[in-house]
């Protein structure tokens, strides 16, 4: 019983982290139908830059974070202007491969900065835990979960309740129609990339408070982010949250109960098996937008 409860708690906590990663993907997908394969690299890049500012420039943590947030906004503007906008109107797949290639560049820059070394950010979240018998709840995970939920709430409000959010949803539907109502497509795109980069900073920092920062963080971002958003539905923030929790729980139970039977590593494939099963029943994810097809 303890094991089950512990696994559930871990699943929720880890799932929260996955949702956090997935949020960045969903944000870009919602506003531009682009699967940003460079998101993992952005996470890693901003975490590294923060680390470098703290360890090399000896800046206080808060100052470093503020600088990185400003930097990330600039990166967002730059990326949108020079890589995404020229491809507007072209095949979406070309844009996705573009983000993939962009990820390579970012990875190269990170290697130039880091010289391949691991980085470990100072702990900025509360440490310690509550013990309830054999079950313990780490404050750090809890803090991340709470921050994730707040971030989700903010993003959902932004999308549903704000004018810029409405513009983003409109742009996602149809560029030309939206432009003809006076909404600037380019500006909306820029805004969504800036926000996605800010999200990458926040989730990168939260992740690096738990784990060492290194090159693997990028691959981790992709490998965990993709199944989550596909389970939840590419366009849905709520879906990303629920998808993250499902993946987190499935992984924990897969690792806890199935791994000993099959010789390990099952945790990695559980979300994918689940994903295929769910996609068979709901082809557009759990909360994804159903494509309206009229012939």
């Amino acid at each position, binding site marked *: 019983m303890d094991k089950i409860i512990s696994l559930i708690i871990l699943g929720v906590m880890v799932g929260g982290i996955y949702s956090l990663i997935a949020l960045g993907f969903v944000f870009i997908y919602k506003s531009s139908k682009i699967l940003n*394969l460079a998101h993992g690299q952005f996470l890693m890049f901003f975490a590294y830059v923060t680390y470098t500012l703290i360890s090399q420039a000896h800046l206080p943590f808060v100052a470093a974070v503020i600088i990185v947030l400003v930097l990330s906004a600039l990166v967002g503007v730059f990326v949108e202007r020079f890589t995404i906008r020229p*491809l507007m109107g072209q095949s979406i797949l070309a844009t996705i491969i573009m983000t993939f290639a962009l990820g390579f560049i970012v990875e190269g820059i990170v290697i130039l900065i880091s010289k391949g070394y691991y980085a470990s950010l100072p702990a900025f979240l509360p440490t310690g835990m509550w013990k309830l018998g054999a079950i313990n709840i780490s404050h750090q995970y809890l803090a991340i979960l709470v921050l994730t939920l707040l971030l989700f709430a903010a993003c959902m409000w932004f999308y549903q309740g704000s004018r810029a959010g409405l513009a983003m949803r409109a742009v996602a539907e149809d560029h030309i129609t939206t432009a003809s109502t006076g909404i600037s497509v380019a500006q909306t795109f820029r805004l969504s990339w800036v926000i996605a980069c800010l999200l990458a900073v926040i989730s990168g920092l939260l992740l690096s408070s738990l784990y060492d920062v290194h090159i693997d963080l990028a691959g981790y971002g992709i490998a965990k982010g993709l199944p989550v958003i596909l389970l939840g539905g590419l366009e849905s923030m709520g879906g990303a949250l629920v998808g993250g929790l499902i993946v987190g729980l499935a992984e924990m139970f897969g690792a806890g109960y199935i791994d000993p039977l099959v010789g390990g590593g099952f945790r990695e494939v559980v979300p994918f*098996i689940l994903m*295929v099963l769910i996609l068979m029943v709901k082809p557009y994810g759990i909360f994804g937008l159903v494509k309206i097809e009229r012939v």
Partner: protein
Amino acid sequence: MAMIPGDFSQSYERDIAIFRTKTQWVVMVIGLAIMLTFPLFMSNYWLSLFNFIFVTVIAVLGLHLVTGLCGQISLGQSALMCVGAYTVGVLSVKFGISVWACLPLAGLVTGLIGMIFGAPALRVKEFYLAMSTLAAQFIIVWVVSHLEEWTGGQLGMYVPPATIGGFSSASPSNLFYIGFILTIVMIAVAKNIQRTRVGRAFIAIRDNDIAAEVMGINLFRYKLLAFFIGCFFAGIAGWMWAMYLQNINPSQFTLKESLWMLGMVIVGGMGSTTGAVMGAVFVRGLDMIADYASAWAGTVFPTIGEQAFTAFSLIIFGLVIVIFLIYEPRGLYHRWELFKASYRLHPYAY
């Protein structure tokens, strides 16, 4: 396809012909003949690079049929190559079947497994389909690495080279001939699939699958067929990969490779066989050039450190792809057509 002004295709056969003029035939034959002489003067380094490119070209052709022609995005091509490679490994090592006989078997087994992962295609569309094939990437590699009794698991397995008499594929020059012939055959097959009824059905499905269904194309059958053919190619590529390395290991077949194969189809130009080949050669060549360029850059800026090599190679590679896509998002083949057209019409503008 632009032709010389005043020269029109007067029959349907001529219009869909691969080589429409005698010059094309001659250029083609001379080009192939020159390539066949490569092993006579090239070092093993270049030959094995070509062998690697052959592997890639075959796999990318398969992906071209699934994604470029039929419009079903697949992110599992590399894992399906893994199936092909392990089919050869297991059949030849555990069951003593001749490596040559394994060539079609690798294709068939991979095709069948590909169909399993392609089956969701009937219901699932677009990126969601990409993800069910992404699942294939993870599940296949996991299964292969856990069938330890057969595959040796993560420790990998050695595959015997293909031999006939004294001819063994273990040497890069011999493998070059095998790979060369295999690639030409596969290009011809891909090109001809595109020109037949099946190919036209694939294109109809890609452009609008509901409309295609209404026209009487059996969606399920054709989508599965697309996956079968595409994965058959991946299986052949897997065979070639096993011959190329002779040591196969589940971690050789990564998601990154699968994504790059899709990248090659895009860079080459969606929906064109020539484009797929061009994309594979371009990306592989670029990867290699980036390595050399970054080695040079490393000697120019030695202060940057030991990692300058990797960093520059990644940055150069990524940058060229990004710049290329900005200037030609429709791919190499499109640019090639424009180039040919403007060359033919020279000196007239239109």
